[in-house]
């Protein structure tokens, strides 16, 4: 009986190896192609930026107004810095709406103190269905600032409240633990100014603020984070945004815009019902839904990503918190794929249906395949059918490819913004690009399997990710969690 089982397993191993190889070639082939496409697109965009619309937008009466919506839950440590940076943006006409999502800390008190908020009774019109709202505040010093408080009903609901209150044709969602560069909103508006009839959403790059010096709501000195976990995320974000999103955007198959920093046409979002309150990754779900609805209606549209508008955000610097975040992201990815499964491999939905969504499916089950791979390797070793030579080569290829992709992202960063000008930072980024293949990648696989488990069998909910607070704040505003 055991012999028969052994024989069956031995017979199955080559087929499984073939499957793994196919998966490996597919995934890395796509990454490789994205890197190439992103390199070309980035160079093109860099040149166009100098001669394009951006230069005329600052102060022009034709630049559309924007409502910046900031959902905040227990963000007392960062909120003043973040809102100061938003009020100080170089943009001709923008308002800032802070939605305090039932914070239990001093978020509202800090806002009231810093911006001298006074309570008013505004009419709240539910263009999109939301939970209840409680109080409204405005600032006599900053006429463009509105703060609304509500019970804790989640980020998606908070964003919907913000959309209902927004008075501009476009809205920009920004996380409360983030800081926008002064021209970020203006740059993010670039694709809309150039193609206002089609562009319904656009996203900018999110970078890690851990380790950076912040003063009066501005990043005054860019540094790499002090801890290795955050540094690993720096390279990961560069890879994800600079070639992942740029590449998919160039193909017209972008299905994720980071909720940390993205801009939408308000009416279009309202027509599709706003953010979905039932999902844990409301940003991705909204983008997929926009693709779906626009395609179904046959409306011409574009959803784009550009890498030059920069938003600095705080990354989790503890393994437990990072694990929570990654589980949630993966669970959210699954929710978006499952709730829009009709789009998979469906040419009716254009590049999103044919490339974007199927690749998300591959990404969704990728961690399972990887874990299975490890199991088979161990099993094969136990059964004595493992070719050590081949395994080592395969591992080497996997690592070198991973390093290549990350180093490619570092090169793209160098060619575009070069926010880490110090030599030691560059060497550190290259070192981290190698290091992440030994342990961090595997940890990510485990977290993502956890996310998959959560998606399929456990209760899905928004897990709060605790962070340390944006660093090196000026006296009076400093704090640490």
């Amino acid at each position, binding site marked *: 009986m055991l012999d028969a089982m052994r024989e069956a397993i031995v017979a199955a191993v080559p087929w499984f190896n073939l499957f793994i190889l196919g998966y490996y070639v597919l995934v890395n082939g796509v990454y490789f192609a994205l890197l190439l496409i992103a390199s070309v697109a980035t160079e093109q965009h860099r040149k166009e930026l100098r*001669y394009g619309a951006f230069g005329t937008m600052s102060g022009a009466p034709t630049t559309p107004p924007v409502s910046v919506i900031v959902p905040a839950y227990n963000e007392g440590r960062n909120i003043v810095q973040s809102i100061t940076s938003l009020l100080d943006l170089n943009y001709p006409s923008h308002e800032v709406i802070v939605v305090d999502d039932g914070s239990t800390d001093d978020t509202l008190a800090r806002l009231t103190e810093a911006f001298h908020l006074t309570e008013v009774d505004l009419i709240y019109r539910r263009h999109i269905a939301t939970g209840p709202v409680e109080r409204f505040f405005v600032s006599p010093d900053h006429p463009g600032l509105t703060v609304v408080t509500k019970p804790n009903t989640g980020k998606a609901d908070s964003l919907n409240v913000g959309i209902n209150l927004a008075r501009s044709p476009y809205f920009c969602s920004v996380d409360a633990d983030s800081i926008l560069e002064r021209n970020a909103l203006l740059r993010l508006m670039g694709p809309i100014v150039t193609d206002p009839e089609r562009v319904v959403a656009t996203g900018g790059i999110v970078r890690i603020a851990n380790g950076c010096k912040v003063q009066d709501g501005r990043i005054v000195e860019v540094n790499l984070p002090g801890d290795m976990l955050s540094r690993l995320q720096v390279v990961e974000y560069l890879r994800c945004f600079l070639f992942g999103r740029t590449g998919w955007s160039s193909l017209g198959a972008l299905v994720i815009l980071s909720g940390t920093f993205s801009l939408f046409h308000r009416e279009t979002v309202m027509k599709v019902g706003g953010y979905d309150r039932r999902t844990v990754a409301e940003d991705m779900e909204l983008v997929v839904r926009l693709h779906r609805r626009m395609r179904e209606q046959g409306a011409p549209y574009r959803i784009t990503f550009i890498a030059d508008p920069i938003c600095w955000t705080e990354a989790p610097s503890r393994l437990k918190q990072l694990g929570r975040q990654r589980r949630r992201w993966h669970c959210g990815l699954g929710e978006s794929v499952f709730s829009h499964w009709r789009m998979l491999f469906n040419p009716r939905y254009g590049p999103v249906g044919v490339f974007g969504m199927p690749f998300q499916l591959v990404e969704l089950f990728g961690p399972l395949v990887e874990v299975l791979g490890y199991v088979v390797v161990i099993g094969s070793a136990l059964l004595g059918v493992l070719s050590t030579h081949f395994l080592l080569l395969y591992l080497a290829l996997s690592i070198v490819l991973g390093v290549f992709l990350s180093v490619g992202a570092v090169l793209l960063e160098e060619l575009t913004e070069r926010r880490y000008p110090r030599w030691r930072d560059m060497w550190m980024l290259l070192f981290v690009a190698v290091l992440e293949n030994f342990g961090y990648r595997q940890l990510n696989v485990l977290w993502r399997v956890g996310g998959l488990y959560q998606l399929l069998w456990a209760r899905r909910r928004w897990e709060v990710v605790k962070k340390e607070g944006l660093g090196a704040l000026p006296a009076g505003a400093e704090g640490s969690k």
Partner: protein
Amino acid sequence: MNLALVIVTAAIAALAAAVGTIVLVLVIRRLRERTRDRHDRRLRERLAGQVNRVAGGERAGAGMPGRFKPGVGDGAVLEELLCEARRTAEPEAARHIARYLDEGGFTDHALTRLVHGDRFARADAALRLAEHGSPRALPALVAAVNDPERDVRTAAVRALGTLGEADDGSALAALSQAVERVAAGGTERGGDVAPRVLWASLARFGPGAARVLAPMLVHPAWRVRSAAAYLLGEVGAAERIPELTERLADMEPDVRAKAAQALGRLEARSALFPLLGRLEDPAWLVRMHAVRALGALGEETATEPVARRLFDPHWRVRQEAGQALARMGGSAVELLTHTLLTTEDGFAREQVVEELQRTPVLAEAIDRVGGEWTQTAEPAEEEPAGPATRLLTAVADVGAHGRMLAALADHADPGVRRALARLLGPHAGARVTAGLSRAAAADPDPQVRAEAERQLAGRAPGAGAGAA
């Protein structure tokens, strides 16, 4: 199997080589840039004096003839520095710099690049010429507006906007042609210069742009008419009020709305009656802009017609009507108050209350309400019906308790706090209960505490716990 091993090994080698190459590129690039930056920095320090001399009036060739060659070494850096200096220079110094760049051959160099360079060089040259500020660049830039490449056309349009002051009419004519071309394409997408860039450049000409914008008011394409109307308001073309007033009767709602908006921006009193006529427009956008424009005019005659818009079927018009009346002040605010006290329309009442908060009326009523109540030593069953009381009762009925709760907590006059406790008493809700509970427990005045307790007495126990 062997083949597979060979392939994998080759792939590893290739990738490792690629990684090495990338690292090498990174290092070489940084080294080169570091060297260049150092050189530029030194050069900039050295040339700072030269920039000052140029701004002071030194002519090209006066110092060392031929030393600064355009586009090369010191010349390129000097050009950069002069352009930077010109952006912030006084008009006289800016003229000197422009003359130096022209006489020194820098402008000619850019003009050559504008014609013979690749697309990025041409676009760069167009922007550079704008920074030079030489009127000689105008014909070339006008020609570049028709360049086959969009980047170059966009840069030329931007450059012409920057050179607006020096225009002899040709720049505006070229931009006008560009508008025609975009309109003829029938689309605002992809292929041509983005219309918003085009309009932004035209706006930089200020009121001078009116002579090309005004004819566009009768353009066959409604988008052009609409944009022209909007921009005429933005550039302050007061002499075009008659043409804009005519556009209030345009067949396209967006044009009518933009014309109303422009007339408001221009505070066109002569357009008062046509604007009043637009208050009944079938398109809500037109009604909204007409209301806003009438609010900007602030004419007494418009008060009542605008107040009627508080009952408009579209919430944006109601909102705008409320804001307009609040902005108009005086009798318009009285009308707002009157509407609140007399109408049964819930939407209108909400809107009025929202707007009254932007006026001193509510704060004044709160200050006065104490006086209307202190005449009775003991709480009376019948509420006195002073004007402040009636107003605040109506405000509280709408559900707007925020101001009153804030005053209940911190108003200096205990009579006011007591009156507010009485007025808020009949209203349900966790916030009101919490406010009354706080007053009952912590108000320094015993009469206020007693009144708050009396109002709380009839409520369900723990009703305010959530908000407290």
